[in-house]
Structures are given as C-alpha cells and as structure tokens.
C-alpha cells in the first residue's frame, strides 16, 4: 500500500494558476525543447566565439542582474517565485538530464552520425539551441533559489549558499569563459627558438613568448613478452594476462607455453648473434628467452622489439607461432626548455605531463613528441592554453568542495519503527527526531 494513495489529494489546481508546480514545469520544458529544435533547424548550431570578450561578461551580468532584479522587485510574480522553488529545479534538472542523456548515447562528432541527428544538433549538443535553453532554465532556477536563501545568512543557509552559489558561479564562468579559451600547439625542435603556434583549425598565431627546446627526455617501462602468429605478426591474445613484463628471471605461462627470461638488456646491440648492453643512439632492448612447450621440448634464443634503426627479432616456438617483445611504453616524458618573454625574462624549466608551467597568463603542457623515434625524438609538441576565466571557475569549485562537506553532515538519526516506539513507550523521548525533510510547499 503506497503512502501516496493514503494522502488526501487537494482539489486539482488549474494549470497556470498560482502557485506554479510540476505541471507548469513540464509544459515549460516542452516549450523550450520545441522552440530550441525549431531554431536549430532554421538557424543551425551556435558558435561559442559569438560570446567572445566582452560580450560574455555583459551576458553574464545581464542574466544575473535579471535574476537579482526579479527577486528584489517581482518576488510575488508567479514565474519568479516558481523559479526559486523545487518544482522548477526538478523539471530543469530533468531537462538537462534528458539532453545530456541523448549526448551520452550519441557520438559527439558530425562524422558517423545520420544527417537528421546532425541537423537537430544532437551530435553537437553543447552548442545547440535546446541545450542553451535548457541551461538558461537550469541557471535561472539555480540563481533564483540562491537569491531566495541569501538571507538570513546563517547555519544551514551557509551550506546552501556554498552549494548553490558555487555551482552557479562555476557553470556560468565555464559556459561564458569557453568563448575566451585559447588552445594552441607549438612544435619544438632541439636548439630552435619558436615564437609561433597553430590552433586546432591549423591557423598560425604569434605567441607572446618564445620557447627553445634543449632536450626531450623519456623513460620507459620494461617491454612485455607475448605470443604472436608468425606470418601476420598479430598478438594471439590481447588480454594482459597473456603477456608479462620482461625482466631477468621473470617466468610465466603464455597460452600453454612456459616462458622464462634468462637475460635482459634495456639498451643493447647485436654482436655475433648475441646481444650485449651498449649505450648508443637507437639501441633497442633485448632478451634471451627459453620457451618450453606442453610436451617438454625447449627452444632458446634472443628477441628484440627493435627500434626505428634496428629491425625486430622473434623466436619461433612452433610452426605458426613465435614469442615477441612489445614496444616499450613511456613511463615519463618531459621537455627541458628555455622560455623567453617580451620583457626580456628568461626561464629555464622542465615541462612534464601533469606538471604544466605557467608563463604570462599561458599554461604550457607537454603534449606529444615524435613517436616514430620514441625516446630518441628530437622534437616535442607543447600545448599552450589561455583560460582567463579559470580563477572564477575555481572560486565556484572551491565553494562546492566545502559545500559537499556540508552535504555529508545532513544525515539524521533514523526514524524509529513502530515496534521500537512501542518498546520505548513510557520513556521520555526527547531525542525523537523529526523528519529532516520538511515539506517546502
């Protein structure tokens, strides 16, 4: 028996009579979706560059100003008071969920999607009209809820403020700031000073800083050993349990073969059919392996992954199969660079994955290298990103971090079941919790 059924239903309120609730919310969502899709079909998708500075600043101020104005002067208006309550919040959250759900199932790229998906903007969701309208509804509700609880600012309301205002600030700055985000890449070659960069569309851009690559560094994990079919060089089983890391003395079972590594060199050269450790440009790793099949017969020999200078070498283990060494994976890579700025500053530093370097409002990231040469690459690609709105986004993010800690404290002692209440009857029940969820409407 659901409790819903035992609730005494108030007389049904006609749609659009105050106060608005869920019905009005769903109608609102339907209206926004239809208008959005129509605009999408007629006018095509949106371009975030239309919001470039200072348009985005004005747009953000205007939107926020409208919310503040609405709350201060038109609090009694049906739309304004409704936006600040849960039915608007839940329906706008549902609309965003619906749109993002479509996005979650659709490849976000024009290529590979049917024409109708493209023209409805579904393959480019975040720059479509329905998404814009959904976000405006969502932000209007979030903003109005924040205004509503701004006073009195104490206790519970501080936690509320951190969550709601934090989210408002983070999303607003993220959406508007996207128009001012610049991402370019700079291709560096050892010993060359580079001033120019290219953006995603391949346009050249002068940079307010220059970078010279002194050295590209890479460290590698040990390679792995796997069974391959000899004639097409394909790994028989890609599962990582059918290969293991090479190291002196390592031993394992690969699809029925017992494989033992007798010798391993990280860098080596071939001398009289053997491999010896050498330190040389392009020197590949090598290993001496012993393979025993299920009948006990053994083969032994050297294998190497090869490098861009030397060819690889396999060890044949039966008519169709061989064991092979995989190409080692990078464990760390970085660029030692000198950065020159227009005001004559000279910064010597290292740019590494996960450790970007900030210079003159740009953040420099280790992006890629010439993978044909791997650790002998003499070039390196740096990505430079300028995101002037980042401090605002981070303000919101840190408010949210504190807000989520507050959220964790909201749990309450459980309601007592009837049996427990009966058992405790007679005792003064000063601790009896009231439901933590007080109906708002």
């Amino acid at each position, binding site marked *: *028996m*659901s*409790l*819903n059924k035992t609730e005494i239903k108030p007389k049904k309120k006609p749609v659009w009579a105050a106060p608005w609730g869920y019905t009005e919310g769903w109608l609102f969502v339907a209206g926004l979706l239809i208008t959005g899709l129509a605009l999408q079909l007629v006018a095509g998708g949106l371009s975030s560059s239309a919001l470039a500075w200072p348009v985005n600043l004005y747009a953000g101020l205007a939107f926020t100003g409208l919310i503040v104005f609405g709350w201060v002067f038109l609090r009694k208006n049906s739309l304004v008071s409704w936006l600040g309550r*849960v*039915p608007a919040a*839940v329906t706008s*959250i549902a609309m*965003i*969920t619906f749109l*993002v759900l479509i996005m*979650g*199932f659709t*490849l*976000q*790229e024009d290529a590979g999607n049917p024409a109708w998906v493209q023209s409805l903007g579904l393959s480019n*969701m975040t720059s479509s009209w329905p998404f814009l309208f959904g976000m405006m509804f969502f932000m209007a509700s979030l903003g109005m809820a924040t205004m509503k609880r701004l006073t009195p600012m104490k206790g519970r309301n501080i936690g509320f403020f951190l969550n709601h205002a934090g989210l408002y600030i983070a999303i607003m700055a*993220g959406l508007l700031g996207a128009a001012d*985000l610049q991402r370019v890449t700079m291709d560096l070659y050892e010993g060359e000073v580079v001033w120019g960069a290219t953006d995603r569309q391949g346009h050249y851009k002068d940079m307010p800083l220059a970078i010279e690559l002194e050295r590209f560094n890479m460290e590698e*994990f040990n390679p*792995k050993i796997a069974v391959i079919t000899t004639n097409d060089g394909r790994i028989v089983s890609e599962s*990582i*349990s059918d*290969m*293991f*890391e090479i190291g002196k003395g390592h031993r*394992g079972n690969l699809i029925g073969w017992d494989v033992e590594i007798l010798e391993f060199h990280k860098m080596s050269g071939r001398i009289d059919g053997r491999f010896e450790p050498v330190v040389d440009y392009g020197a590949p790793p090598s290993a001496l392996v012993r393979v025993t099949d299920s009948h006990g017969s053994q083969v032994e020999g050297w294998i190497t992954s090869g490098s861009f200078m030397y060819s690889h070498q396999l060890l044949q283990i039966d008519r169709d199969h061989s064991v092979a060494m995989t190409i080692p*994976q*990078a*464990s760390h*890579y970085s660029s030692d660079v000198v950065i020159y700025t227009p005001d004559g500053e000279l910064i010597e530093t290292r740019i*590494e*994955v*996960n450790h*970007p370097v900030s210079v003159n409002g740009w953040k420099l*990231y280790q992006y890629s290298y010439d993978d044909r040469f791997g650790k002998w690459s003499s070039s390196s690609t740096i*990505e430079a*990103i300028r*995101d002037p709105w*980042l401090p605002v986004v981070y303000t919101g*993010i840190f408010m*949210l*971090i504190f807000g*989520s*800690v507050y*959220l*964790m*404290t909201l*749990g*309450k002692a*459980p*309601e007592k*079941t*009837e049996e427990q209440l009966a058992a405790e009857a007679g005792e003064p029940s000063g601790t009896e919790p009231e*439901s*933590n969820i*007080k*109906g*708002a*409407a």
Partner: protein
Amino acid sequence: MPIDPTMFTIAAIVLWALGMLLFLIAGERKVIKWLAHGSYLAGILVLAVFTWMLWDILGRPPMRTLGETRLWYAMFLPVIGYATYIRWDYKWILHYSGAVAIVFLAINLIYPDNYDRDLMPALQSIWFVPHVIVYIFAYALLAAATIVAIKGLIIEYTGKQWTWSMQLADNLVYLGLGFLTLGLLFGALWGKEAWGHYWMWDPKETWAFLTWIGYLAYIHYRYHKPKKLTTAMWMLAGAFIILMIAWFGVNYLPSAANSVHTYTQ
C-alpha cells in the same frame, strides 16, 4: 606475476561468509556475536593488507583496471555496511554489503588481472588516488542506498503492510552525493593539470555528470515531497543504473569511441 591474489581473495570471502553466518545464528549469545564481528572485520583487514602489498609491489596505485577498482569496491562496501550497522543498527545492510563484496571478489577470481606495472604518464598524478578512492567510496554508499530503495519497492509491490522509512537511504545519499561531488571536482582539477581543461564532455565525464545530476534530482524531490516514497525509490533505482553505465558501461557505448579515460579491461 608479482603477486597471487587467489589466497587473499578466498580468505576474505570465507571470513565474510563466516561472519555473516555467525551474525545470523548468534541470537543473544555474546561469544558468537564477538566471533561474528571478528570474522567480518578480519575479511576487510585481509583485503586491505592485500591491496597495500599490491600497491607496494606494483609501484603504482592499484586503481587502473576495472578489476582493480572492483577490489577497492569490495573493500569499501563491507566497511560502509559495518559502519551503518554499528551506527544505526541495520543488520540486513551488513549481509547485503558482504554478499555484494563477495560477488565482486568472485568476479576477480574468475577473471584474474595480471597486475601490470605500466601506468601511463597522464595517470601519474597526486590527484589519481583521491579521485578514484572518493569515487569508489561514493559508489559503495550509493549502492547501499539503492538496496534500501529496492527493498522498499519489493515490500510495496508484494502488498505487505509496511512502515518503510527512507531515512537510511537519505543519509546514505547525502554522504554518497557529497563524495560523488568531491570525486567530480577532483577530476576537474586533475583534468586541468593533465589535459589542459577541467571539463571536456568526454563520454566518461558525460556519464559522471548524469550520475551526479540524477542524485541531485533525488535529494531535491525528497526535500519537496517527503511523502512520495514510491517515486523517490524509483529515482534511486534509475540513478544507480546510470551510475553503473558511468562505471563500466561506458566502455561499450558507441559514443565512447574517442574517450580518453575508460578503464583498461
């Protein structure tokens, strides 16, 4: 292979199963109760020791593959179940968490990971550990909340006379959503350092966002309509389906063809 998980896994499974059995038959007998507590906690301890050893031997946090995230989940879930039991005296949640943790460990037994030491450079970050731990912890809390909802739905649809309370589910969701939000934000801060942007609507991120907003809808709906239990319970069930897609379903979606962060199988 640097470490064989079989013995640890089996030991944890046996200790939990024994603990659950003892809890069931203990009644008022003190000694058996203590043994039950001991056995249940020992299971968690064994798994914790194994995880710590694995971390040490691999030289990287064991959080890269799906199997490794299942390991953490199987460790956290009984912790949450036990804490909930101690704090609020819900015994059934202890059994439920133990059972789910056993299933997860069994999956790891059937599909063993060959623990591979490679960790791509983008994952080598101070954010990696807090991000994953906080997320898996949130998943475990929200799974427990889902079970409250499913138990409520079953009671309702079998037509029993019921006094079901969503208080426990609400508590678990507040905690779980708090951790989920932290996971999302840590991910954003990490993304900025590793890939240059805090949010890129990558498929994994898209589904993480959906999970998050689903629970957000739940708490707001609960706040507004505390009496409408059935709708709320269905919302929890739905949100958990999205959570599962975000955790491992994304790997199989066509939209994830270009994802930068799906777990290695």
